[in-house]
């Protein structure tokens, strides 16, 4: 794939229009199929792709993504295979590695995040989201990202108070992952009031980082609504993983699942764009 060791391509991805940021667990359910799924999402119009590196204790994930992690690990996913996966991907969008800190920390001979970041950067990863790494513990990873020109994306939660929020803003680069509601990942029906509130609070910090909203977005309407509420991007995970899970359970040919992913991806991307056109958001 393209990318490589230059600078992160993430900032550019949010520049022109509302971004569609899909998530998939790499290797779910197999290496080959998963490559095809990620590529389908690029075709659907993904602006950034969050690519999960499965960890055995995914404490921040809901059942949907947790099962994806299990499928991927059962399919033989390892850290080494993940990097091979990234290398084998034929896409041209920024990639964010989403994983837990222990895998980053353990990589390489001495303990610490630097070797992992170096290798990830070399394979084409542009940034990182690490759900179990709060600002307090993020110093070493931030430093490694700086050294290798990568972004570190922080999650802002509805419970994040203003002092913490400023700290997260200061720590982050690439974009802010604004968690739409309390809880864990997983598709939900409606967009919560807290999303609007969170976005407003982030705005108050005066940051110019893009804000991508995730947690529970699964439809055109929701993607449109979060953008309308002020987000710069819509992150979608569980709704897409559901399609992978169903395809796996029903033993569908990967092309069929890829096509479904692409279709939902398009719808979501269109939702995000719809909010940007004044008529569409007024019609709501």
């Amino acid at each position, binding site marked *: 794939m393209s990318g490589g060791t230059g600078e992160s391509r993430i900032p550019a991805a949010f520049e022109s229009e509302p971004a569609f940021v899909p998530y998939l667990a790499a290797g779910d359910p197999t290496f080959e199929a998963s490559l095809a799924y990620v590529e389908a999402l690029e075709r659907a119009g993904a602006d950034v792709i969050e690519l999960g590196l499965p960890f055995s*204790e995914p404490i921040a994930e809901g059942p949907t993504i947790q*099962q994806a992690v299990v499928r991927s690990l059962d399919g033989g996913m390892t850290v*080494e295979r993940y990097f091979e996966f990234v290398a084998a991907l034929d896409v041209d969008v920024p990639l964010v590695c989403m994983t837990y800190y222990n895998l980053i920390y*353990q990589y390489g001979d001495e303990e610490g995040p630097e070797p992992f970041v170096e290798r990830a950067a070399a394979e084409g990863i542009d940034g990182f989201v690490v759900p179990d790494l709060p600002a*307090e*513990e993020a110093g070493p990873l931030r430093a490694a990202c700086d050294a290798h020109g990568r972004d570190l994306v922080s999650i802002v939660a509805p419970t994040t108070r203003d002092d*913490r929020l400023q700290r997260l803003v200061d720590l982050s680069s690439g974009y802010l992952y604004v968690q739409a509601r309390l809880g864990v990942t997983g598709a939900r029906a409606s967009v919560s009031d807290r999303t609007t509130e969170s976005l407003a609070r982030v705005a108050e910090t005066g940051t110019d980082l893009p804000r991508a909203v995730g947690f529970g977005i699964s439809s055109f309407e929701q993607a449109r609504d979060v953008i309308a509420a002020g987000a710069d991007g819509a992150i979608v995970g569980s709704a897409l993983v559901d399609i992978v899970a169903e395809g796996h359970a029903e033993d569908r040919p990967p092309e069929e699942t890829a096509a479904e992913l692409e279709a939902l991806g398009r719808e979501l991307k269109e939702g995000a764009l719809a909010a940007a056109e004044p008529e569409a958001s007024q019609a709501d």
Partner: protein
Amino acid sequence: MSEQQQRRDGKFGDYGGQYVPEALMPAIEELTDAYERYVLGNEDGFMDEFRRRIRDFGGRPTPMGRADQLSERYGTEVYLKREDLLHGGAHKLNNALGQCLLAKYMGKERIVAETGAGQHGTATAMAAAHLDMPCEIYMGRRDINRQRPNVFRMRINGAEVTPVEVGRGTLKEAINETMRDWATTVETTHYIIGSIVGPHPFPSMVRDFHRPISAETKRQSREAFGRLPDAVVACAGGGSNTMGIFSEFVDPRDSDPEGVDDVDLYAVEAGGSTLDVDEERGVAPNSASLSTGTEGVLHGARTKVLQDTDGQIMESHSVSSGLDYAGVGPELANLVEEGRVDAVNVDDDAALAAFHRLSQTEGIIPALETAHAVAYLEQHDDPSELGEYVVINVSGRGDKDLAAAMEETAGRDLPNAPEMDVFDGEGLR
């Protein structure tokens, strides 16, 4: 590092910390604040109420008594600190009651907790009922079906027991699920973690609720034999009973710090069937994270962890479900690293033999966890080298383990196993 610093950032040397999702951080901060005010500062008389309730409801102080037969067998004075007599049958209630009360002081309305074998879950259910708090316990489906009596107890105490169906349906899935619940309900809910693990302030706070074990042991030693013991032995899973009985020897806060540094401390881990690890399958046939684990981040803290070279957490194993955990408390990991605590381990066979030995010679049926601590003396070439006075922490009673112990015993060749032919044919359960 000064104690004050330790309190603030929750680091024990390189270990500890707060590796949790951002959504939980405000709750963790709120809890840290509450820990400092109520537990360390006794604000609103919190600790007074805790001490009263753990006495009247829990049964503190628990006794410490001489083990006549073991003393003779090992040529040294063996004393047993009897946490098995605490309400619920294990040290677990110290923590469950303390945290439940703290949740009340913090204005929380609901309790969640994970449980593996059900010990922490039953202690939490009892404490919550006692303090009139709604409570929900997450437990793996497989554990539910293996540990029916403990599920009965939780339900009878009025707790909700929510089966976790994913994965293997055991403790780690239950922890993940409880974290998820907490991440969703954090504003009204307190998560009672079951050992000295997890993000700060849990390791320090849980230790402090178990600290009376240690303070009593000091006082009772002086009463029984006029001085502090030479050695203190405790089993270590997460390490809460361990730090409970070690803490006043490591970091004395009571009025009597003299001589604590001369007391040797042994943390006995579950050696399982072997210390060797099956890297290929990601399985450790033991739970000896202090002895064989490496530094990693698990469930919110940096500590010693059983993991493969990638950092994926391995399945741990032990005949004793309460020790069957791939991590260990960060404070204990650090104390071992500093050389203050000796990490040792005994295997499943030795633990089962010790289970029967203590039952037959002292009239105390220990938890299989506790049996590991008891087994350490037998494993020792010359137990009298441990010193003149040795205290073993009897962290819990074995009633919960009867069926498991009998089944495990039946499959092994233990010289001191009782025969069970008194039963009419049927199986052991």
